[in-house]
């Protein structure tokens, strides 16, 4: 594990064209890292995330992505992700290929990735047209019961980026609160970059807490408020007002670009 600046971490671990998963389910979404990816004008990324959320709406709108693996692409409790829609409906600013799943399917795909199995199995996608539009959703026959079950290919991102509350000096990462598929996405990746609210001297031994040991972590970046407008349990709350406001900002291409220029491009990484 190395302690890096945000700029250096993105430069080293997110080359153009790579497969990147910025995970965190509603909680601990790595916005600061996403903004640095935008500032560095990364291109042709294959973005992976169960819920693209505002972070991928911003990255897609700024032209970073050419492919998206996802399972629910809305603004939670508000409505659409207008930049995602504009990319899919109008190919603006670039076409976006979709690899679309259900939450259950993506969860299994990350879990298989963490275990370095080539596929995951679920009793899923039943009664859905998704398998007809996504050829990666296949099936397998149980060697005992003969039941036919759905399969998804494992997800093994080139890099997974997480935001967490704390790392210690060794690089162990501790997470509290909603974890989503963070652990699975972290362990499925070839490299793991973690931005954190704070770095502490050392944790007490943490029996049964959610912890990623330092030797599975490639780089740690200190990025206070790095999950805003999402939240970090114990540090700051979800900025629900901003999530609502984003609906207006993102509806119009020019308003969107103006906001990104002012709030993302003009700022320097910490």
């Amino acid at each position, binding site marked *: 594990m190395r302690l890096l600046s945000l700029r250096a971490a993105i430069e080293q671990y997110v080359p153009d064209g790579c497969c990147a998963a910025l995970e965190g389910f*509603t*909680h601990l979404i790595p916005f600061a890292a996403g903004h640095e990816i935008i500032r560095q004008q990364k291109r042709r990324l294959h973005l992976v995330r169960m819920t693209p959320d505002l972070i991928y709406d911003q990255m897609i709108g700024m032209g970073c992505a050419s492919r998206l693996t996802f399972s629910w692409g809305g603004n939670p*409790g508000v409505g659409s992700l207008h930049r995602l829609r504009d990319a899919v409906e109008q190919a603006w600013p670039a076409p976006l290929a979709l690899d*679309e799943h259900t*939450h259950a399917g993506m969860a299994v795909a990350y879990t298989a990735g963490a275990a370095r199995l080539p596929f995951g199995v679920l009793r899923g996608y039943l009664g*859905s*047209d998704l398998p007809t539009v996504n050829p990666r959703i296949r099936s397998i026959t149980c060697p005992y019961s003969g039941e036919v079950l759905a399969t998804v290919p494992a997800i093994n991102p080139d890099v997974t980026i997480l935001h967490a509350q704390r790392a210690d000096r060794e690089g162990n990462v501790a997470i509290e609160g*909603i974890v989503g598929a963070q652990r699975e996405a972290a362990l499925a990746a070839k490299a793991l970059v973690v931005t954190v609210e704070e770095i502490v001297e050392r944790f007490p031994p943490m029996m049964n807490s959610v912890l990623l040991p330092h030797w599975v972590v490639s780089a740690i970046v200190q990025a206070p408020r790095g999950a805003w407008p999402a939240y970090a349990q114990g540090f700051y709350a979800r900025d629900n007002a901003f999530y*609502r406001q984003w609906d207006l900002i993102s509806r119009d291409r020019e308003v969107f670009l103006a906001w990104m220029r002012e709030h993302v491009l003009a700022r320097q990484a910490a």
Partner: protein
Amino acid sequence: MNARGSRVGATRNDCGWTRDEMMTIAASRLLSNGCICFVGIGLPSAACNLARLTHAPDIVLIYESGTIGTRPEVLPLSIGDGELAATAACVIPLPEVFAWYLQAGRIDVGFLGAAQVDRLGNLNSTVIGPYAAPTTRLPGAGGATEIATHARRTCVMLKASPRSFVARLDFRTSGRGDVPGRGPAAVITDFGVLTPDPASGELRLDGLFPGATVDEARAQVAWPLAVGEALRTIDPPRDEELTKLRALQER
């Protein structure tokens, strides 16, 4: 996504309540005490928490974010607000929610929303228009596909219009309406409640909200809506229900 419906649904009628409130209250009444409930965001979240604060104090609420047994004081905007984690009995990884709880058959009731529902209760929340070139890209499946399959019973909450209650879905995101008994147990909409005909599974008008009419209902549904044999008028909101719902929403 249904701005018209939202505005109409939010207007108080002469009795002092709105159709949105009536939808939420009607849904909350379908939940029995102690049942294990997989909650979606928006109206379902309000309905489930209203049930918890009225007749079903021991209901167990699970949000797909991994919060199990939550008791929020404030209605969350998203399914993963900090309030849900802070008031949960425990927070578990999302893959476990879907594999060990939902797929394992441990959920009694699941709530679903959508952009479109067909007469068998199948749902579309993926696209309007062709998948490869949609006129409207919707959020997608999320948990819906497997909730529809694995929850013991599902309820759909969806405001009605001929564009949402359609003869044919643009895309089938979830639903087993063509498998007898696997469609939703009820569709709660802003004129009343539809339930499936036990033999054919076709959704029929089963109950009307006070003030709603069969003609109004039929005007919002794009297929020829059948009326159940024992069409009833649903009880209006009780004072306790309205008071607690409004308190929950105002916090």
